[in-house]
């Protein structure tokens, strides 16, 4: 079945509205607020004093070169990695003081985490749904919807161990959407995903934001961030190099140019690999 040709596009579960958001006359509580987050691994400072504010309803892009500290920041933000200093709040709930309340509000797609390899995709979704305490009927219906929307129904009887890289990404995304979170935090969500599925995922995320949800997404792919996000933060060497509304950060240039300028201090220089210059060599 072709995901694009479907007449009824998949609609993710409606984001739950957090009670604190209903307070009237208060300054709006951000979907996610990181304050002074720092982490050091031995000698190496992975993340240094990161401040980020993700407004409710925003589609927030997190970009940065390899090893810049994006995954470390996200891990600390969602309660997987304990920060040395600083705090992370999700809708005002401190992730490290009230982890259970915070984890209920957020759907996370981590990068490079282990999975129970010997379950099928549907089994994983059903068990995780049950563990989250969803009503039994909802669990099965949502698992089916998600597998269908992400094009995984054909792989019903396939173990996660046998999934391709792209399929693994998709099943992790499904686990993040399962409980209708208010905030989605996605680490490299479209890496290795085929164009058809990528387009489906993009539409799911856009609908999620349109219906009041908030998304934080990390990526190296600048056009993707420009296409989807309304806010962006550039992280380099563990610190926030720039953050704000997309147009402010790129300042009239393409995001890629702004990024290269900020990260390397100038346009990319040509690199030569001398032994490749003479064309293929047959041994």
């Amino acid at each position, binding site marked *: 079945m072709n995901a694009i040709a479907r007449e009824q596009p998949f609609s993710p579960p409606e984001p739950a509205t957090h009670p604190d958001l209903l307070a009237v006359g208060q300054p709006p509580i951000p979907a996610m607020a990181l304050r002074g987050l720092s982490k050091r691994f031995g000698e190496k400072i992975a993340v240094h004093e990161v401040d980020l504010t993700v407004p409710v309803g925003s589609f927030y892009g997190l970009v940065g070169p390899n090893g810049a500290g994006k995954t470390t920041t996200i891990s600390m933000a969602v309660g997987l990695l304990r920060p040395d200093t600083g705090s992370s709040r999700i809708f005002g709930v401190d992730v490290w003081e009230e982890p259970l309340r915070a984890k209920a509000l957020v759907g996370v797609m981590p990068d490079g*985490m282990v999975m129970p390899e010997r379950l099928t995709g549907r089994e994983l979704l059903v068990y995780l749904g049950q563990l*989250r305490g969803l009503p039994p009927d909802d669990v099965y219906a949502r698992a089916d919807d998600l597998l269908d929307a992400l094009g995984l129904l054909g792989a019903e009887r396939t173990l996660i161990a046998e999934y391709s890289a792209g399929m693994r990404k998709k099943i992790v995304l499904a686990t993040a959407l399962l409980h209708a979170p208010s905030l989605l935090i996605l680490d490299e969500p479209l890496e290795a995903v085929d164009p058809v599925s990528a387009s489906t995922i993009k539409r799911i995320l856009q609908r999620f934001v349109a219906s009041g949800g908030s998304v934080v997404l990390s990526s190296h792919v600048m056009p993707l961030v420009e296409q989807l996000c309304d806010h962006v933060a550039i992280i380099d060497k563990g610190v926030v190099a720039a953050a704000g509304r997309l147009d402010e950060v790129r300042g009239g240039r393409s995001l890629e140019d702004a990024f290269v300028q900020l990260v390397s201090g100038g346009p990319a220089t040509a690199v030569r690999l001398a032994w490749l210059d003479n064309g293929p060599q047959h041994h």
Partner: protein
Amino acid sequence: MLDTLIHMKLAVLRHSPRPIANWRTAVGLALAIITILLAIYPTGSTAQTGDLLKMAIGAWTLGWVLAPIQTGAGADEPIMPEHLALLPIAPRRLANGLLATLFVGMGPVITLGAFFALPVFGARLGPAAAITGTLAMLLHLALAILLSRVVIGITSQALASRFGLEFAALQYAIVISLSLVGWVIPAALAQDRRLLDDPFAFLSHGLPHGMQVALRMSPASWGTSAIIAADEHRWLAVAGYLAGLVALIAALVWIWDAQVSRRLEIRQRRAGGRISRPSWIQRRLPSSPLWASANRAMLTWSREPRMALEARIAVLGGIFIVAIPAAVNWTQIVAWVGVIVLILGASTSCNLYGLEGSAFWMTLLTPGAIPADVRGKQIAYLMKFGPVALVLSLIATAWGEQWWAWTWIAAIFPAALGAGAGAMIVVSARGAVPVPEASRKSGNLVAAADNTAQTIITIALVLVALLPTVAMLYLAGRYGWPLLEWIAIAMGIGSGVLATWWGGRWTISWLGRNGPELLTRLRYG
């Protein structure tokens, strides 16, 4: 939550590549039946039957602790804390839920069957003893399984540091050698030659006093002791023994909770192991495909925490197996230390391709790399265990003044070394068992595949390869012909070279034909 986790575990077991009714189950069931038979074996007294049961329960418990490291059995974790880290469930609640899943599986069922010997033993004595036996059965099952998991957790944590690795290896080596030859200590202390001459004499005569005392102190015996106390109406003692078991279990649950909570957070991205510099010799090896692959295999041996641990256990275990009897003046086997190290070394090196995992694609895609890879792994094995085993043999024979052993060692040592290098590479390729890959590893660095069968086959192959040489030595001794001794030495060296060469050749040709299939197996399990 509990039933979901148990369903989850059952689903994983259902998808296991192995059928549930495999030879492991059969062997386990047979051992369980033997254990139950011990409870009704007609010994002279209740106390003697009790001693048998104490030893049997101790052996099962020890098996649960040692098997994950020795053979990989029970070291895997179908459901890891890491899988559930994002759920809004309190760590302690999750830990207790995961605890319940530990009791789901064939291993616990078979062990429960074996421990059924306790109520059987109790039923022979009376109703109170039978009830005590039933309680003891459940407590001992909980103790064995929890101890196993907690030890895996502690070892895994230890492997992250150099000191921890050495310390864990030392401990495992001591426990393994004690379980194999520890019985000589009380036997020697009691001046009781019967046990040394006929290890099965205890079936008819009972255990020597020293060993009884040692047994009584071990928690593995408390359930049996409680049953005997119930039979004698010593209720305080019954309560004491059972409370002791409950206290131990509570302590283990406490540690388990802490271990699970710890793993719900990412501590530091580390694969365990250290970046050791190549040794002086390694830096001077010639530059060629063969030596590159030998070098790579040697680096893996020092950096992959599980391989480093197993190699150390082989060497230290060999030393302790001869040193413990020697400490009580029973020095007959001292000269064999080198050969024992070689056999243990081969048995811990029989899953090299499994440990390499899907990284095998690099060998598969590089033209002509398979022969270099196979021979390189063999060279690495010879260099890892050969010199250290040889030095140990020389020191031990000199220390024990066992000059007679020179001929035997000159013949058997090369035979064992070569047979090991041949057998381990054949089994590594043909019987490769995929292990969790480093990039997908969780907080459990010990996680491994169950290669019990492969371990046993490797040891058997090495022993079979030694047979001709041993037979020739026996004839030489029997008829006193020096010429036969020389022939035996030549046979030992010749069979060693032949085994290494042939094992490598067979593996090269097998990998040439089945490389892609092996890669598929390593990748998808």
